[in-house]
């Protein structure tokens, strides 16, 4: 008699735990690859979003306080974990997008390489963006990038894994924490990615994954007074209202732009979610 397989319950990832939505809501995601699989995915609510922001805020200290070398190693570890589950992710991407096995494998490989690439920036961005400023006075004056804090991320809708990996990695590599709203087209890929990150030594709360709908959760993140920045990559056509809401506490805003997710992020995209701190240190005998 054939064994009945154990199916996965698709939950959110908040503060290192995998809760269901407090609202009890789910929605049915059907396979895009022609199989008859169905996933009942948690539909995150306002309360879930706010809980995720609390978890992300709590993680800012430990994560931004970690050495850049340590952050780089942890992000590299994410690549290792993803590589070890490569075949699973190929299936996940195919389920979500209906891509061919070849195309799905290419996307997973690119996502693994993306983690490695961005991980390597952790201890280099300060060297290319920082400066020693030759002020006219007895001071050693320098400027360094620092994380802006909690970043709300609306993941791109059109890139199941690679786009998601890119927006998360570019936000956290500098020491930010994030609350990411997964693409409504590919929520199961995002939760599987959360399982990868959960085993990568990433401190709890550095990344929080909400499955749900950007048009419901986007305004909550954009107007949340304890979120420092928002990446509107997956915001859709109504992003102007989100940028306006973000002005309530002057969030840093990454406007949506036509992006080739096949390209590695340039430093400016990572630095857009940092602050420049200038320090005047006295000199003298």
């Amino acid at each position, binding site marked *: 008699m054939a064994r009945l397989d154990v199916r996965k319950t698709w939950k959110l990832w908040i503060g290192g735990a995998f809760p269901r939505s407090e609202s009890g809501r789910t929605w049915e995601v059907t396979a895009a690859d022609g199989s008859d699989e169905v996933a009942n995915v948690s539909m995150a609510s306002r309360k879930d979003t706010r809980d995720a922001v609390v978890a992300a805020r709590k993680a800012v200290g430990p994560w931004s306080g970690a050495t850049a070398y340590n952050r780089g190693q942890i992000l590299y570890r994410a690549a290792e974990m993803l590589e070890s589950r490569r075949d699973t992710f190929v299936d996940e991407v195919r389920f979500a997008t209906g891509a061919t096995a070849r195309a799905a494998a290419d996307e997973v490989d690119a996502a693994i390489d993306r983690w490695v690439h961005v991980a390597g920036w952790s201890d280099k961005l300060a060297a290319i963006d920082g*400066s020693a*400023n030759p*002020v006219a006075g007895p001071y050693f*004056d320098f400027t360094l990038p620092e994380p802006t804090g909690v970043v709300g991320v609306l993941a791109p809708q059109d890139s199941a894994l690679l786009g998601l990996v890119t927006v998360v990695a570019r936000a956290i590599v500098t020491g930010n924490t994030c609350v990411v709203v997964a693409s409504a087209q590919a929520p199961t890929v995002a939760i599987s990615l959360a399982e990868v990150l959960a085993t990568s030594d990433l401190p709890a709360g550095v990344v929080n994954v909400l499955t749900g709908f950007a048009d419901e959760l986007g305004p909550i993140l954009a107007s949340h007074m304890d979120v420092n920045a928002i990446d509107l990559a997956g915001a859709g056509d109504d992003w102007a209202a989100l*940028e306006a809401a973000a002005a309530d506490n*002057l969030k840093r805003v990454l406007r949506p732009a036509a992006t080739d997710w096949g390209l590695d992020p340039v430093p400016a995209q990572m630095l857009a979610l940092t602050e420049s*701190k200038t320090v*005047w240190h006295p000199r003298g005998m």
Partner: protein
Amino acid sequence: MARTDLDTPTSVTDLVTPTWEYAPAPQATDVVSIAATNDLFIGGDWVSTRDGSTTATLNPATEEQLATYTVAGPADVDAAVAAARTAFASWSRLRPATRGAHLYRIARIMQERAREFAVLESLDNGKPIRESRDVDVPTAAAHFFYHAGWADKLDWAGLGPGPRPLGVAGQVIPWNFPLLMLAWKIAPALACGNTVVLKPAETTPLTALLFAEVCQQADLPPGVVNIVTGDGDTGAHLVSHDGVDKVAFTGSTAVGKAIARQVAGSDKKVTLELGGKAANIVFDDAAMDQAVEGIVNGIFFNQGHVCCAGSRLLVQENVHEEVVDRLTERLGTLRLGDPLDKNTDIGAINSSDQLGRITDLVAAGEAEGATKWELDCALPTNGFWFRPTVFTGVEQSHTIATDEIFGPVLSVLTFRTPDEAVAKANNTPYGLSAGVWTEKGSRILEMAGRLRAGVVWANTFNRFDPTSPFGGYKESGYGREGGRHGLSAYLKPAA
């Protein structure tokens, strides 16, 4: 200070230092001529308004009218933006070294006419001539000199080779450092190949109009710099104008948020330099005389009309009494009065509106239970004045500990441990600047790393340099001015 009951003088200085009366030392004002009426500077010419009106600017120290100027209307803003757009085509393609040469000329002319600018600034703003002469004007000239040198080196500005200017910049500046803020805005914009329409503050339009004259003397091509004087409506027309590619604003957080909402959904690039409530943190090992000077400079420089002013003094508890005693003794020597007198430390409050805001906030401080000390000095009968004021016993929840006062008012709080100092310093929606006073270098760097502020001064305060990026965290705005970082506010990568 502790007093003894002995029948002897309490200190050696009482024996040897008589109290000197200061003789008046007025700076002559005839070095500058002020036109009675002022047009707009658009397309390299002085043009009268199309649909605006006229208003007056006062000397805040006397309430006498200095001049009338134009309140530009929407059609004036249209004309200025159009002139800037026309000029952009050639200015952005000019040989970079030639753009730099224009900026060098401007820097030199500002240095040559420095006294004129200083006197005019003090007349229109109310700040002491000592400050306009020694800080505002030389730093403004330095800003042009610094950015002149960038014009032909933009490939190394950090955006990759061949970065491009943004286009027309709409710039709105405040009244606290009228000429210096103009320099912070115009110098990097022009160096990067943009053209500008600048709106000076309502109460301080005069040095911007004098600067327009400098542009003419420097043979700056018409339309590269346009000055539209006016009020808040003029500024709103400018930042919301479809022909503007870049908005740069320095001013209040409330207006900054309104601008951020207004440009939402557009492709305009925005930089905002807004309010602050800076913590100035004094540890018990600080060099006390130096720290007291720094506290005074931190909050009473420019009558406290400074967005990055050290308005919250955080003193380690065991030296609180000593610091407050020394501070009030030092404040007793400050001279408040005629801004044009070379001995004046504290000038006039810029406007009656601002005086009203300061007065209301100080009343709130008293009502909420903080202990008020104020300088015992006579105030001139005309003009807008406020005595240097220190509140002790301030709680973090007091209005005077949370709200930007933008006046000569210091709130003193205490802390016991470095962790507590950091927590209190960061307990504000603002994040523009902070100060740390300690003799321990490692503590300076650790504190600097943990303070959520864009500029951290150690054993100094309120220092500005064109090479040093300046700007805020959180609700103090975004973007940087000065240094290599400031250039990226006016450039985009090669296509």
